């Protein structure tokens, strides 16, 4: 067994023009490991995933996939972007979308092949999507579409799977199902999985490691190491409290912050949304 992590990010910096979104972000993910990137809207979760994918340039730092610098369109990385909206009229069944994950980047028209069909079938059943394999993709529910997109990403046998906000807009039951599915796949296929989310709670039971993004920086480690008042306060640059309510964790802006410190104060206050979600 190799000890090289599937993904290793060191001192990453990235942004848009003069706006620096990420600076000094480091994380690793090993095979079979589930790493969650947690942060509020605009914290840079999507930017981080896109930089890892090579869809967006970094302005500093090192990204190694399987111990090597990644190129554009790396077959070793599977990706499920945020908010894939598909028109109900799109002539595309769930199984067609999964098949495009296998050879969508190839020129020419696909010829029917038994091997291809069997692989698609196998992936559909791996994500429990056989029931709606022949439904139009545009008619699937959020949870169903998420499963199909995961199958689309997995069929090319990546080593690393990136999921951008896979739990957004899901009802609680679908959320649970998708979380269990992702955890099972990471374990069974020995994949390194990176999930971004604005709420850590649905993922607490399954995550091996957390990357907490705030104010462009990241705190990485286990939940116990990172989700602590002192660590997050220094990350935000202002005091935050970490509350445990039943099985849930809530990060709340503590004392009123310096009014000139609007950026950090804004991010910290945003965490109150977690609190609102509880009630």
């Amino acid at each position, binding site marked *: 067994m190799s000890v090289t992590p599937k993904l290793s990010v060191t001192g990453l910096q990235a942004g848009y023009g003069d706006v620096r979104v990420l600076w000094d972000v480091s994380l690793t993910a090993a095979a079979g490991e589930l790493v969650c990137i947690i942060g509020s809207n605009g914290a840079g979760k999507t930017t981080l995933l896109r930089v890892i994918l090579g*869809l967006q340039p970094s302005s500093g730092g090192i990204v190694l996939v399987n111990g090597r610098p990644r190129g554009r369109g790396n077959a070793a990385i599977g990706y499920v972007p945020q908010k894939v909206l598909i028109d109900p009229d799109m002539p595309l069944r769930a199984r067609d979308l999964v098949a495009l994950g296998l050879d*969508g980047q190839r*020129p020419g028209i696909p010829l029917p092949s038994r091997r291809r069909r069997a692989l698609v079938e196998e992936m559909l059943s791996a994500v429990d999507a056989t029931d709606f394999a*022949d439904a*139009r993709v545009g008619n699937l529910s959020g949870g169903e579409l998420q499963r199909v*997109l995961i199958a689309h990403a997995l069929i090319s046998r990546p080593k690393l799977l990136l999921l951008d906000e896979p739990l957004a807009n899901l009802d609680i039951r679908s959320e649970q199902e998708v979380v269990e599915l992702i955890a099972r796949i990471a374990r069974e296929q020995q994949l390194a999985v990176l999930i971004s989310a604005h709420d850590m709670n649905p993922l607490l039971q399954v995550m091996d490691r957390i990357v907490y993004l705030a104010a462009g920086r990241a705190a990485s480690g286990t939940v116990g190491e990172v989700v602590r008042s002192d660590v997050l306060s220094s990350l935000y640059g202002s005091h935050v409290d970490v509350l445990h309510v039943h099985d849930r964790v809530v990060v709340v802006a503590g004392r009123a912050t310096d009014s000139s410190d609007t950026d950090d104060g804004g991010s910290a206050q945003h965490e109150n949304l977690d609190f609102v979600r509880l009630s």
Partner: protein
Amino acid sequence: MTGQLFEPGFFTNDAVQTALLVGAVVAVISACVGIFTVIRSQAFTGETLGDLGTTGGSASYLLGVSNPLWGFATAALIGAGLIELLGVRRRPDRDLATGIVLGAGLGLAALFLYLDTTSSSTTGVSITILFGSLFVFNTATLPALIALGAVALALIAVSYRMLLLSSISPELAAARGIPVRLVGAAYLVALALAVALAAVTIGAVLSTALLIGPPATALRLTKRPGLAMLTAAATGVLATWLGILLAYDSYYWPPVQHGWPVSFLIVAVIFAFYVLAQLPVLRRRTDRRAPVAATTNP
């Protein structure tokens, strides 16, 4: 019975045979390109390229080029290049940029058509450019038409999967290393060529009907991408042939016993097919809005 459906001479008339051949070729190409026009929501771009064909077609008459196909194709390709150069990704801005190119092109078309009619003192040219001339198709044009059509089909065939994935989600496509912008540009070239071919048959103004109508009909009838393309092609060919047949028969129709315009009849059949395809689906479409519709599929 047969004598009434196929009026005498339908199967022997050279002009009819040419029309059937050209109509079929153009319908197939329009359908294969048009499927992507519909799923990429680029109907307005298609319409614009067709209207710009008016500019090219009228200019070609002015320059003494008897075959307007070259004018249609050149103008549509220039239009496609301009739209791509403006390169606006956001939908409202893209429509605005397209509209501005369209406005400028049609302004020129107004001038060229005016000059055409005053110099040749006939309105026939304008009608031909705007509304087609399937029965007076010059067979010398046939090789050029087939060659341009082959280029359009080849572009679609080569980029088929990449184009499909880019149309579904540019993010998914880019993550697989697909050059989304290049694929989009190749598709625009195919679109310009398809529109130019349609302009020769049913006219620059009506070319969108052939481009959008059969694919929109096909999307109601099938949920598989490849099958949608075949269905659209079959629908397009059938509509074109039926239009030609009706036009031929219409020489015996009231009011003037002078024949009805073939382009009108083709477009009417395309529209009728689209309406027919809506009917059985109307109910299913409303059912689909129920949140559990997909899971309760038998």
